[in-house]
């Protein structure tokens, strides 16, 4: 069972939406993410790159015919970090969280 841990990297507003969307899916196409989260191509790319560099997201580029198709999914590490972050949020809401020190959060 996961232990709660607040994750500052995930908690940034746009990334929280992005990771939450990815957490409910397997692979998701870039276009679906962009349209669902109402982000620009560049903003979404930037967030995905950040998450990929920390090992939270895996990006796959494939060609369908001549068209490039980019997809993303949460890695096992990303999924675990998200689950722990959700538990931390739930604890905060229920008022059982211990005071969070700097070591409790990323970024």
């Amino acid at each position, binding site marked *: 069972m996961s232990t709660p841990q607040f994750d500052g990297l995930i908690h940034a507003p746009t990334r*929280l939406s992005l990771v939450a*969307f990815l957490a409910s899916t397997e692979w*998701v196409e870039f276009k679906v993410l962009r349209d*669902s989260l109402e982000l620009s191509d560049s903003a979404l790319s930037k967030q995905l790159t950040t998450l990929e560099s920390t090992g939270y997201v895996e990006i796959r580029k494939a060609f369908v015919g001549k068209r490039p198709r980019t997809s993303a999914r949460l890695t096992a590490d990303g999924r675990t970090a998200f689950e722990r972050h959700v538990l931390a*949020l*739930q604890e905060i809401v229920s008022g059982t969280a211990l005071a969070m020190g700097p070591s409790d959060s990323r970024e």
Partner: protein
Amino acid sequence: MEPADAAHALAEIDRRREQVIRRRVFPRWWWWAYAGLFFLLATSVESGSIVIVGAGIVLFAVGAFLVDIPVRRAARAATVRGEFATPKSRLQSALGLLGFVVVLVALALLTGLGWKALGLPFPGTVAGAVAGVVFALVGPLLVRWEAAVLLRRTSRR
């Protein structure tokens, strides 16, 4: 962090999960395209000509394949996590789908037989048209119901 901020973040997470589950895979026209195909198939079968029945079956198969292409593509573009569905929710889903098919077939049979008993022309075609319209009207409701079942099952709080 304040509890209110954490609650807001959890609400956002729930909203995104709901967005994934409710994501529209079947466009409205897809249901009506199938309604048209049912009508076409019923009409061809009623003609009694082997050639026309054969052509109707081929057209139905090709049409179904073509109208399913964008649906398959949309479904693949963002697949809901398989673990969201429990054996119970899968069973509910399967029973819902089975019930829908049984109702459609029963409705088509009752309409066709009733139409024929009244001595009216083209009972098979009318039955196909009725089944098609019911399919197009009720199908989207079935999909929404399945999404609601999945949402209830995955509700975090």
